């Protein structure tokens, strides 16, 4: 089922974008993941995930205005699309269902 499958890292990236809301671009996503997951990821690795997600239509992106702090280069802001949110929810539901089925912990 290629095209809709959601990897663990991709899921985290999408959740980070949702948390950051209006301010989700490369550096902030990277920092969010760094802090929350206590795990250093490279910008390159992040880019791969972002590209894949965009290909699947789970996120969309748009350039912002140029800012002086990055040598006049524009930021690219990411947003999770409706389809993305649906997929996230599906993934979450699936897990919850499965959690419920575990006899001892329930």
């Amino acid at each position, binding site marked *: 089922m290629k095209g809709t499958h959601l990897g663990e890292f991709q899921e985290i990236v999408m959740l980070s974008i949702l948390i950051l809301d209006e301010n989700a671009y490369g550096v902030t996503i990277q920092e969010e993941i760094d802090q929350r997951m206590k795990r250093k990821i*490279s910008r390159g690795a992040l880019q791969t995930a972002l590209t894949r997600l965009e290909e699947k239509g789970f996120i969309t992106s748009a350039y912002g205005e140029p800012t002086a702090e990055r040598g006049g280069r524009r930021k690219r802001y990411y947003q999770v699309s409706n389809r993305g949110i649906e997929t996230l929810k599906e993934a979450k539901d699936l897990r919850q269902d499965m959690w419920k089925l575990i006899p001892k912990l329930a």
Partner: protein
Amino acid sequence: MKHPEIPSFIYRIFQWFCKDALFEELEGDLEEKFLKNMEKHGRRKARRLYTMEVLKMIRPTILKRKTSGPTYQMALLASYTVLALRNLKKHKLFSFINIFSLSVAMSTGLLVIGMLTDLLKFDTFHQHKDEIYRVISTPYHNSQQYKTQATSPLLMGDEMMAQIPGIQITQLGRRLLGEAKLNEKKVFVSGIYADENFFDFLDFRMLKGDPKKVLKDPFSIVISQSLVDKVFDKNESPIGKILELQGFGNYTITGVVEDAPRHSHLQFEIIGSISTVQARINQGLIPSSQIGWEDLNRFYNYIYIPGNVQKSSVVNWLRNSTLSYYKEPEKFHFKFELQGMTKILPGPNISDSIGLKMIHLPVIIFSIIATAILLSAIFNYTNLSMARALRRAREVGVRKLNGASSSAIFLQFTLEAIILSLLSLGLGILLFIVLKPEFISIVPRANQILSLDLTFDLILSFIAFAIITGLIAGLAPSLFFARLSSLKSLRSSTALKALSKINFRKGLIVAQFTLSIIFVLAISITRSLHGYLLTHELGFERDNILNISLMDNDPELLETELLKLPEVSKVSFASFIPGIGNWGSIQLVDSRNQDSVWVATMNVDHKYLENLKIELIEGRNFVPNENKNREQSMIVNETFLKNFGLGSPREALGVVFPFRGNPVQIIGVVKDFHFANLEEKIRSFVFRNTGFYRVVNIKIASADLLESYKKVEAVWDSVDEVNRMEGRFYDDEIEEYYQILVDIMKMFGFIGFLAISISCLGLFGMTIYSMEIRLKEIGIRKTFGASEKALIVLLSKGFLKLVIWAIIIGVPICYYIFDAFILEQYYYRIDITFFEIATSIAFLLAICMATIVTQTWSAARTNPSEVLRNE
């Protein structure tokens, strides 16, 4: 733009590999992160983190993708080739200048490649070539180092075999040569001595005979296949036949060996068993000191050190243990070292070599010079291509607008350079074939060592060489055009002028002419030096003196017969010919401190001083027969008196020196004269009179020297029926001795000619291009009343300035090289004067002026109405 603290190299790499669509976002992110890191961790760590981040960007999602497949690229290449050929055809002048200068320069480059290919092949046919070494030795006299020899003691071999297990040694000896009688035929043969281990690890092939036995017994000899072919019929067997070698005894032929490969430094027609040497010592024919540890200039030890034996054990043995074979090592000993088999030829300049020899220093120098010439031609290409920028910029601009990438433009221009270079190679190979015989004749001993045959391998390396040359030549123009932005190149031409790297090109021209002036000055100085050496007063008269070799003739008989000729006025005898670098040596004891001192010596008869007009300033000459029974008198030079502290010439008369125990008295003192050559300072010198002569000096009274020579030859033939006369006039003898300088001049002359013609062609092209560009300017100037003369001065000034800069740089360099290295070789030498410098500069300037002014002149004469008409 990027932040200045970001490492720009890394930045550029990133820019190069990152997809254009992603670059802005990613680079922005990286920079933002970098700035944060700088605040947090400081500059160094931030830079390191940045680099790490960039390296981690190398992944498929980010890397640029190839835009095209292979067929597309082939089509592109084909199209570029067609374009390049069209361009070459269209710009005939440009193509001519470049092909001519590149092919001329390449021909010297090809000579170097051919030479190196030949030289590097030497001695590589031995299977264990990297494990075979030769022992070389350097004498130390009172801790002063003398010249290294290729020889080592014959006695060393057995000692070494006994003390270092596992190694193998073969011992060789040199100079087994002379007239031989074999199978009723007389032939001249030359070869070496070797022991029975010779065939163990040296890969020479035995054709007949057992390699282990053929060289075991004394007076055995192995002969080469070519000698067999020369002397014997097809079905005759040479084995067991006797070879009579004049002066060396009779040898029994025990085997036949294949001729030594051409690329072997050891060459032989005959190989005599080295045990013969011991046999001849036992017979009392040669002194036993020849094989000892003190007097070693005849024998060689070649060692095979197999992989399981440490090389250092041999090196240490040679360095430390050999000292015990000398009575007083601190006073006199030899230092022994190993020389690798493949390092012998080409190798360092060591004396007493066996077989072929080629010193590596001249090879290196020649290679450097050829590289410099080639660079000069490459500069021409670079220079002219950039000068054409104005014309081709439009082409590049249009291409880029139509979507050509930088790399495509780069490829196009590089390919153009390579095609041009390959075309030049064709002409270059023709020149190479023409120059080959002359080159081989100039380089000493080259006829035996170099073949320069055009083999398939050699041609392949030539092609590789041409491609590399093209790549280098095309690099600067290709980069320049590839970087050109389409906007700039399509705008007005004035904007481009600043672009076409004028200073860079000027630098190239200065470099070319610096090389040229160095060669011109070098020729001029060598010429002066040669003239000086030939005409320098040697302290004796050499006019009309004919020197001939005495050989084994009776001096008295020859003299009587020669004096019968009316053309011969005087005849004298000597052991050496002074002035051309040969002399004998004898050890005398200085009575003041009991030190043994080597002094130069020569044997002469009583007519010698008079014949050569060597001035006797005190005392008397030898009288006939006074030293016949016992040597009792000698004549010394002024320097001798000074060095031995004997006071005035008068005081020195009667002083006695023991010659190997025998007291000999000074009976006369001569004025100092150049007994050696002009490279050596005049040292202490002794004339002896013991009757050991090798040379006859004949004073010719007649003016017709050639006719007299023939008559002397007729007399010689009546006295000596076996040998032909070997004679030369003294002047010719000296001229020949300094012939090397003429050869150097020829070489410099040829290379200098190349350097100058290449540079001038480049200058010529540059002038033409720059005149084309300035044609309008000239027209305007003329309309405003500028005279032709003023225009010529104005247009030529810039180029002349470059030439003058080259002179300012080149003259001191050449002066220094000659003063410190080349003239330094001669003790009696010239100083570089204003004359040599001024003539060289004048010569170079004249050529450059001619090149420039012909072009500026025709430019200045153009009718302004024609150039200004259409705008």
